């Protein structure tokens, strides 16, 4: 959990780096920590609606 939190901080400071969320999901699945709660991270990671503006 501690490692997941550390990685999550990195995401919070760099929310455009959505690949970090996949890393968190994978870690949570491996360690079976709060796995069901992290389903939302997949939705966030897959959300593309702002990509056009953020890449400009």
């Amino acid at each position, binding site marked *: 959990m501690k490692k*997941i*939190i550390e990685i*999550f*901080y990195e995401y*919070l*400071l*760099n*929310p*455009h780096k959505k690949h970090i969320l996949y890393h968190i999901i994978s870690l949570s699945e491996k360690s079976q920590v*709060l796995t069901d*709660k*992290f*389903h*939302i*991270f997949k*939705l*966030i990671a897959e*959300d593309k*609606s*702002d990509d056009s*503006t*953020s890449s*400009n």
Partner: protein
Amino acid sequence: MIALLVTDVLQKSELDRFLIYSDKIFTDNSDINYLDKNLLYEANSLENILKKNNISSVILLKKSEKIKLLNLENVETKCNLVCLTDKNWIIKVPRFFSNNCNKKSDSCQNIILTQENKIELPILDDELEHLKTLYRDKKYQNFVVESEKWIFHNLGKNDIQVMLRYYCGLIYYFKLGNIKKSLEHLGISIILNPHMPELWCAWGDILLDKKMYEKSKIIYKNAIIAKNQRNIFDRFPLWLSRNSEYPQAMHQKINESVKKIKTVKSIYDF
């Protein structure tokens, strides 16, 4: 009898269900204290309480200055205080809170509440009552120190930690200017309950305050996604104003601002 609740309300029309968080309650009999403050009520349980106390109608005033009406019975015929026009509510303001309202005209759209009605008490578990007192007394340093002590001794109580860390995060940033500690608390609160948009909004607000527009925009978007995924029957408080309208509005505002900035820049493009 009429009761006025100053509140934040989450309305889920598809489930025909209201959740009400009330921090101020007015009735035309000030001696009656029939509702515990700082509790979440589902409409059904609220209805029972009100019936028991002979309350026929309830006017809900949202903190965000618009009004909602919880129509337990036929309000129009049961009382003289509220009636409905085509689109807007007309409220004939009862004497005891008339000073708190700014009534523009007979067909006014909004009843605007004065600032005193803002929710200020933190929403924390009952066992953290002593922290509420510190917060109310604006002893913010003591609040975070005592909170961290509590967290240290209660690491397993994740659900209670969510709200406590949320307030610690806000206080550390907005009151004590410590972004590192703020991130620590808010980050953990989000990871413990990523479905709560209010937490994402708090982090979005901090990024925005640091002028990180693009990043805050993504975080507000996350809040919108979280809102759609949230189970409204969870045990956490709901603020309508920070649940849906706020992240949407902030996201849109940043989008518009960024577009404007880009337009100005483009003048100087060769």
